[in-house]
């Protein structure tokens, strides 16, 4: 436990130093790096639900939307605000998302597997629908005018804290319950583990961090729109978690970083003048390549890039 805290401290210091020196970085790379950090938070937090607890949430972007809109609304009300206001707004956004997570987590207890998946997807759509009908939040036109508070320091502080909280939760004696729920819910219940409590806790914690990620996103891109938090965005995060090997925090983080950088890398390839025209054309259709890569990766490394070697016991053959 003590080692873990030391590690956290070291990571935060490294983050501060790194962010200090990265300030002069080319803005494009800076933008991509912030994107990496935000996706790290999203993937690591979803991993708690989908990876460690074995539930299946398809609505992470919905929680991100709650955090983004709540924090953006707050800083806008505060007239742009100082860094302190920004951090408070971030936390408030996370709290609002956590509440939404509670609202989703509670009714979802009766559901499992695919039914749970569709309910979380449904909540994502409902959250988007409510925002899209709310004039105070700009409705379908979106919300803009936030100051750019988000920088590499805050983004990676968020990412490090997310990873720390998730790994500490799961690594603790208490947190073994998450894994028990995943591995065999009935057996866990039989030995006196409150599966309900663990499931709801997983949802709330994951939603909280998704809300933080949303707040960071809103104060970096300075414009948000309900379309940006749709089903496909949720799907992106799920893919990161599964590709990283469900439950492996390091794997999920690497997958999140890879999948954020990959499209930009392909963009670069498509502009290489030395490539033959057909290859450039292929690289221009980045999404085709991305989807093929996804299929091939799943076929050749079904356990994910860094997943444990054994498949889970109770999965149907």
């Amino acid at each position, binding site marked *: 436990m003590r080692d873990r805290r030391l590690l956290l401290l070291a990571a935060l210091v490294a983050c501060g130093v790194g962010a200090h020196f990265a300030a002069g970085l080319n803005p494009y790379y800076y933008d991509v790096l912030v994107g990496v950090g935000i996706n790290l938070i999203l993937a690591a937090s979803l991993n708690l639900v989908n990876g460690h607890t074995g539930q299946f949430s398809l609505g992470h972007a919905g929680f991100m939307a709650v955090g983004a809109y709540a924090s953006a609304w707050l800083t806008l009300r505060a007239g742009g605000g100082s860094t302190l206001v920004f951090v408070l707004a971030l936390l408030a956004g996370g709290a609002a998302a956590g509440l939404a997570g509670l609202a989703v987590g509670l009714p979802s207890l009766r559901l499992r597997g695919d*039914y749970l998946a569709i*309910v979380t997807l449904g909540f994502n759509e*409902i959250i988007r629908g409510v925002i899209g009908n709310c004039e105070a939040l700009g409705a379908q036109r979106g919300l803009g005018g936030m100051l750019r508070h988000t920088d590499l320091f805050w983004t990676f502080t968020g990412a490090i804290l997310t990873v720390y909280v998730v790994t500490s939760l799961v690594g603790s004696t208490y947190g073994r319950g998450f894994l028990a729920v995943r591995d065999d819910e009935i057996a866990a219940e039989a030995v006196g583990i409150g599966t309900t409590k663990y499931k709801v806790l997983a949802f709330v914690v994951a939603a909280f961090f998704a809300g933080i990620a949303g707040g960071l996103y809103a104060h970096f891109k300075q414009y948000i729109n309900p379309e940006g938090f749709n089903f496909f965005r949720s799907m992106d995060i799920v893919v990161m978690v599964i590709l990283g090997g469900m439950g492996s925090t390091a794997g999920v983080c690497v997958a999140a970083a890879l999948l954020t950088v990959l499209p930009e890398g392909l963009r670069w390839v498509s502009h290489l003048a030395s490539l033959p025209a057909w290859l450039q054309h292929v690289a221009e259709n980045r*999404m085709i390549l991305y989807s093929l890569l996804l299929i091939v990766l799943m076929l050749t490394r079904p356990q994910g890039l860094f997943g444990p070697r054994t498949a889970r016991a109770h999965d149907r053959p």
Partner: protein
Amino acid sequence: MIEFLQQLINGLGQGSIYALIALGYTMVYGVLRFINFAHGDVYMLGAFAGLYVAPWTLRLFGGGPSFAGAAAVLLLAMAVCAAAGVAIEWLCYRPLRHRPRLNVLITAIGVSLFLENAGQSVFGADPKSFPEIIADRALDLPASWGPFAMLTITVGQLLVVGVTLVLLVGLRHVVRRTRLGLAMRALAFNPGAASLMGVNNGVVIAFTFGLGSALAGAAGILTSIQQSSIDPLMGVNAGLKAFVAAVLGGIGSLPGAALGGVLIGLLEALVVGYISPTYRDPIVFAVLIVILLVKPTGLLGGTEREKV
């Protein structure tokens, strides 16, 4: 009152399309226990198959719109989709047969993204005009119907509901009365035992994919007859709604999928007509969630006891 009835008719037409697509989701779920996310895109493929074969078949059947020509387009598109479904299963899902379901799910998402983006690249992103294979017009209702003669029922709507019913009856016959249908049910019940009893699981799974995809292809053509504009992303929304329909009806249950599809269609029409289209999707999902909370396995889904 007339307006309300008219909305029900509108909803029924759209709901039948959802029902046809939902059947494919539910059949695949029945035998493999996974959500084939690429199913909505197979529906899109059906519409584009129709776009490409229609000029040929129309020429074959005298140039103008005709029932025989339309039937030929329908059958050809169903065949193309069946082949596509079997190919997708063979290439992308079969190698993962003994892997966790989530892997297959991600592969399915990959296939879905591939079909959508390759579709945009090959067919072009702008909407294409679908040729008129049947003249879609409003039926002249007899004046003796009184106020009900004010209702508008189109050929396309009648055709959609009719073809859906025929396909449903046909499907029921296949599942209930044929050896392959028996094998499908055995596989859905217990794959291991079915295999021991001499069921060739591979063949049955391929057959199920083919059948479900053919139904999606039929839905693609029937939509195109009514709406005459198709694009590579048309399967996204329709697929999502059909998936909701399948879950609403109880995933794995064939009558459930049909019922779910029709209910979603009716609900959408009523919300759009009487509340606001901006609330259409949120309300559809809210109703779904409420129903699942009351009946966690859907309207007609059987309760599956989890064994230790």
